[in-house]
């Protein structure tokens, strides 16, 4: 037997919702954030509606049960039940949105804030717009020398950074679990790929206290 169109649509939406929950929360153990899931489901619902109303026949098939519910005298009982349930549902949703809770408000951090034009470090003023890594030129001119510099950089990292950022550069150093938010993960394929060295110089040399307000300096444990 062919299922009615409306039921099909509802089943698709519910199915997608359950699939998201199953795959992310149970399968991958990394649940979907509720804010994102809401938006995902919104677009799934919209797309389902678009598909089911794309042709005239299926649009009428969709609308038929709803029309019948409203107009058919034989469906009085169901109609009354629906007409009570829908406002109640809306009321409940509104209430649960507005009800005060003990949850701390969602905090938003800009992970890569815009750098200032100039910064001060080591008693000098740097123009971040023009600043370049003085050692970068050796990469081409003298690869041998460059490798030694990279090695020295590695040594500096293990002396100062790896306690938090981890020996695999993945932000899971031994102290990392004690912090919220977690230390930055340098293996993350995130926007760091597009950051220039002057930005990194700014971030590393001024640490947490050097962050602008939108990047919540009070949440950073990174020393100067």
């Amino acid at each position, binding site marked *: 037997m062919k299922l009615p169109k409306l039921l099909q649509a509802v089943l698709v939406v519910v199915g997608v919702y359950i699939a998201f929950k199953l795959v992310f929360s149970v399968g991958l153990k990394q649940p979907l954030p509720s804010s994102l899931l809401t938006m995902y489901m919104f677009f799934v619902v919209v797309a389902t509606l678009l598909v089911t109303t794309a042709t005239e026949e299926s649009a009428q098939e969709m609308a038929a049960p709803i029309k019948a519910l409203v107009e058919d005298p034989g469906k009085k009982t169901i109609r009354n039940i629906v007409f009570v349930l829908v406002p109640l549902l809306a009321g409940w949703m509104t209430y649960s949105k507005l009800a005060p809770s003990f949850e701390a408000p*969602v905090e*938003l951090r800009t992970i890569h804030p815009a750098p200032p034009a100039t910064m001060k470090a080591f*008693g000098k003023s740097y123009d971040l717009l023009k600043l370049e890594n003085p050692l970068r030129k050796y990469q081409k001119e003298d690869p041998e020398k460059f490798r030694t510099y990279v090695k020295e950089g590695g040594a500096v990292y293990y002396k100062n950074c790896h306690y938090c950022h981890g020996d695999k550069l993945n932000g899971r150093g031994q102290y990392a679990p004690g912090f919220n938010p977690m230390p930055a993960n340098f293996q993350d394929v995130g926007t760091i790929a597009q950051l220039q060295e002057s930005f990194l110089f700014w971030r590393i040399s001024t640490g947490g206290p050097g962050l602008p307000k939108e990047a919540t300096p009070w949440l950073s444990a990174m020393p100067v």
Partner: protein
Amino acid sequence: MKIFLKIVFFCILVFSGFVGFANFGIPQVKSAPPPTEEKLDLGNMTMDQFIALGDKVFNGKGTCTLCHNNVGKRAPMLDGAGEEAVANRAPLRLKDPRYKGKATTPEEYLRESMKTPSAFVVAGFGSDNDTKSPMPVVTQGSIGLSDAEVDAVIAFLQNKSGVEVTVKIPVGAPPSEKAEEAKPAEPAKTPEEVIVKFGCGACHKIGKEEGAIGPDLTHVGKSKNESYLRRAVLDPNADIAKNCPGGAPCVPGMMPPDFGAKMTGSEFEMLVQYLVKSK
């Protein structure tokens, strides 16, 4: 008409969807307010701005870097790193057996060294067995810093060397800009006033001043004629004297080249005639 209303309703619906999402669907990030510009509005200044002001005074109006630089070694370095930072040395100076000043804290020492430079002279930089400093008093003469500006310079020096900034931002201090602007309005009346006003004594020995950086000018009229002296004031690098105090050769570029622009005609004339007569 029905269609018209339907379309209007539909458009408004779509718009409200977008606005709703923009307002409630995504987090609102408030950007930091625009950084304020440095002005001598001391009442509203943050310490960072105060330090920045000190930086400006140190490198500009205060003319400190004229001598406290790496080029001529005329005076000890103040704003370098570590040992070179004066704020790091200040506590040691207070314990120095040669120290005879009244300061009890590093901050007071820094202020004292600007207002009474001879209270302590770093070994090797003064005259008369390091008891007289060649440095002019920064609150007087051509430099004429206000107390607030002196404090700003202290804050800058402390910040630069990494020690705690102990200076308080003065409240209700008179804006120094005014004092500065008032100066050019009244030209000096005597050659002595000209010398004080333009701080010649900071470097030269002339009249009552005891500068020990540039050539001694007390008897300059004996060996140099009027046109040479005119040129020497207007374009100091045209001729460089062979011997400066201490026997060292004089360094080109030490003397500010802009006196011609700063002096009034009568001041310049008075100064030249005074020098010609200094025999």
